[in-house]
Every structure is written in structure tokens, then in C-alpha cells.
């Protein structure tokens, strides 16, 4: 693909054309040779203005359904939304079934709601890179609010929290998820703890439990994503937290840190093939201390010990 073709694709992205936006996302996600050119041609302003909301939690908690409700709130304000719905790839086949859209179909014909499903593709830092690129492309395509939904398993949720300006942890009664056993970090890192399925038995006691472990009880919200009860309150909490974080510098700090993490992830990705190549040239004997050999490997690439 020529750089003229990329230029015209980007022109269409800026004209908010959904097809161009989704093509640009695929080209970057697939590591197309022109991916770099696409990313460096994006405008900064829309990225600086957008709000990125991360939604994580166990499967079945109601993340997609709640996302559908939040979309309605933001659409009522006239905002264009981008949704990135991330699900794990099968470790065996590398394939995936991506079904989060099913719960957001009430917005299927709204030209200002762009939903993109994404599989983890076994990437670690790479997922963050792909989702981060998608966020930036969507912002250039006119999306002022971007919601990233990811299942709360493994490393991916922490990656996504890093990408988001604000993070919701969505829980629900009856999922057999013991709060005490939950990764301690998650409760602290999430900006809001949402007890969804407020219509179901056990939701009150789950909310009380959370209030007792949360650093601040005002962080706990309750919603019923089927009817939308509690969603107005949730979105106004989001709006006030966003305003607060914009005013006190939290938002900027988080974005600076997120970009630093992203740079490190990308640098490791760039370094890995060179390490793979150099390690066989090392002709290492069996050693009691491979760490020593790792230092030697870095030295060969011109990276001396710190």
C-alpha cells in the first residue's frame, strides 16, 4: 500500500467514515508495514480531549450490558462513542468468538456508536499496544468517549486500566467471586466499584462487603443493567471524577505513566527478535547461573550493566 493510499485513508478517518476507521484499526492490529505511518499521521488534539473508560470484571457480571446502558447516556449528550470489546483468544487454535456486541445491539444502527471486538491474540504488552492504537484512531474518527471492555482475567485487566482515564470494576452477586480472594490490587486501582444485577439476591450484601474493603465507600455504586436503574448516578459519578482528575492533574499523570509503560512494552517487542537472534550466537554451555548469561547477551547488544 502506498503512502498516498494511507493519506487518503486518514482523510476518510478524519471525515468519520466508519469503514476507514475500521480498516485503519485492522492495519495497525495486523502489524501492517504502514502501521507506523498511520499512527504518526494522527492528530493529537482529539486524543487529548477524549475520555477513555475501562470496564473490567469477571465474565457474566454484566459489563457488556452495562456498556450498552452507558452508551445511551453519552449518546443523549450528543457524544460519538467508540467501544473496544476485548475477549481472550483460544490458546490452542488462536481463534476467538467475540460476542460482546450482542448486548449492545440496541445501538447497532446508530452511526455514532462504533463497536470493535478485539481478541487478545496471545499478546502481552501487545494487547495494550493494539488497544492503545485503536483508542487513538477512534478519537481521530470523532469519538469523544471510548469504552474498553475486558474480562478481568490475567494481566489484561491491569493493562487496560493503564490505558483508561477511569476504570470501573463490575461485579455481580452469585458469580462465586470471593472479594477477599480477588486480586488486592484491582480493588484499589479501580476508580469505581460497580455492583451490577442490583435486582438479584445478594447484591446488597456484596455492596456492603465492598464498602468495607474499598478505600472509600463513595466508590461503590449499584446498577441494574437490564433496566438501567442506577446508570444515571453511575454516569454522573464518572463525569465528576473526570472533572476532578482533569483539574488536579491526575488525568495527565496517568496518561504520562501509561505512555511510559507503552514505550517500554514496545521497546521489549522490538528487542525480542534481536535477543532471539543473539542468544544462539552465544553458544552457551549448560550453566548454573543463566542470569549471568543474560547480562552477557545484553552486553553483546551494546547494553552494559546498569
Amino acid at each position, binding site marked *: 500500500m502506498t503512502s498516498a493510499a494511507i493519506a487518503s485513508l486518514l482523510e476518510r478517518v478524519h471525515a468519520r467514515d466508519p469503514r476507514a476507521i475500521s*480498516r485503519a484499526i*485492522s492495519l495497525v492490529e*495486523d*502489524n501492517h508495514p504502514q502501521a507506523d505511518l498511520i499512527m504518526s499521521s494522527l492528530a493529537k488534539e482529539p486524543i487529548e480531549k477524549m475520555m477513555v473508560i475501562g470496564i473490567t470484571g469477571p465474565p457474566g457480571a454484566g459489563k457488556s450490558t452495562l456498556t450498552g446502558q452507558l452508551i445511551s447516556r453519552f449518546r443523549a449528550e450528543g457524544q460519538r462513542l467508540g467501544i473496544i470489546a476485548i475477549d481472550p483468544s483460544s490458546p490452542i487454535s488462536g481463534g476467538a468468538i467475540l460476542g460482546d*456486541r450482542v448486548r449492545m445491539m440496541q445501538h447497532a444502527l446508530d452511526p455514532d456508536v462504533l*463497536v470493535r471486538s478485539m481478541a487478545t491474540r496471545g499478546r502481552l504488552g501487545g494487547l495494550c499496544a493494539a488497544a492503545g492504537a485503536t483508542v487513538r484512531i477512534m478519537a481521530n474518527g470523532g469519538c469523544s468517549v471510548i469504552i474498553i471492555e475486558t474480562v478481568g482475567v490475567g494481566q489484561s485487566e491491569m493493562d487496560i486500566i493503564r490505558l483508561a482515564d477511569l476504570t470501573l470494576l463490575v461485579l455481580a452477586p452469585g458469580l462465586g467471586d470471593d472479594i477477599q480472594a480477588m486480586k488486592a490490587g484491582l480493588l484499589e486501582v479501580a476508580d469505581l466499584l460497580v455492583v451490577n444485577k442490583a435486582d438479584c439476591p445478594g447484591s446488597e450484601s456484596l455492596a456492603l462487603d465492598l464498602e468495607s474493603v474499598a478505600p472509600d465507600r463513595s466508590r461503590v455504586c449499584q446498577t441494574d443493567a437490564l433496566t438501567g436503574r442506577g446508570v444515571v448516578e453511575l454516569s454522573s459519578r464518572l463525569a465528576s471524577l473526570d472533572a476532578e482528575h482533569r483539574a488536579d492533574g491526575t488525568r495527565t499523570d496517568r496518561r504520562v505513566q501509561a505512555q511510559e509503560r507503552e514505550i517500554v512494552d514496545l521497546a521489549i517487542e522490538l528487542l525480542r527478535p534481536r535477543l532471539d537472534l543473539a542468544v544462539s550466537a552465544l553458544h552457551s554451555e549448560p550453566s548454573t547461573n543463566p542470569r549471568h548469561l543474560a547480562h552477557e547477551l545484553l552486553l553483546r547488544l551494546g547494553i552494559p550493566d546498569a
Partner: protein
Amino acid sequence: MTTDTTHKNRVLIGKAGLDGHDRGAKVIARALRDHGFEVIYTGIRRTPEEIAAAAIQEDVAAVGLSSLSGAHLRLFPAVVEALRQAGASDIPVLGGGVIPREDVPLLIEAGITEIFTPGTSVATIVKAFTEACATHRSGRTL
């Protein structure tokens, strides 16, 4: 960024029409996943316009439709038309379900790329999607 392209076959599996059975669609979705496809599943009772909009947003290389209700003669061509209206006539549509043999030429005539009648093996279906994705990719300028 590395310079090697690492594409995945992305397809949409949907179910147009009013009947609420999606067993067949789910079987195909799983088979494709097990062959390394990323399958966007849209659920039951989708309109042709909804399927076309989703296919574009998800940048799929092919759309697979399932019909058990007997409405395939109306619904499959309607999806082809909805894609065309949305500027995505390059995305091929494949269909399967309870479809009498005599309807196959009518559907092919209406622009459906491939029709799977009852008894078509899963291997044949996976192969057809693999080929549809490869053809779509090679014909793409962007």
C-alpha cells in the same frame, strides 16, 4: 512496529430473521474459532442493516448467515443489498441452514458466494470461509 503482517481471518456469523434458533450458527462459529478464525457473533433476530453495519465496524472479510425459518430467499439477498448500500459490496456473504437444493441457484444468482445445504460437512464450510477470506484480502487495495 515489526514489519511482518500478522493478519487473522475475521468473519461475522449472524442470524437474520425471526426464528430464535442459533444452534447451527453457534456450531459454525465454534468450528471457525477452532480453526483460528476470529468470529464476531451478533446473535439472533438481526436485521440485514444491523449485520451490514457490524460487518463494517468489525472489518470482517466475510459474512456467514444461518437461516432455519425458510426466509433465506428474502433475507440472504437483503444482507447482500444492505452491504452494497453501506459501500461494502466487496464483503462476501455465505449462507447455510435449512435450504432446499432448488433454492441454491437462486441465491447464487442473488450474489451469495456460497450456500451450505443440510449435510454439508464442517470441513467444507471452514474451507469455504478460508477461501472467501483469502480472496477478499487479495482483492483489497487498502
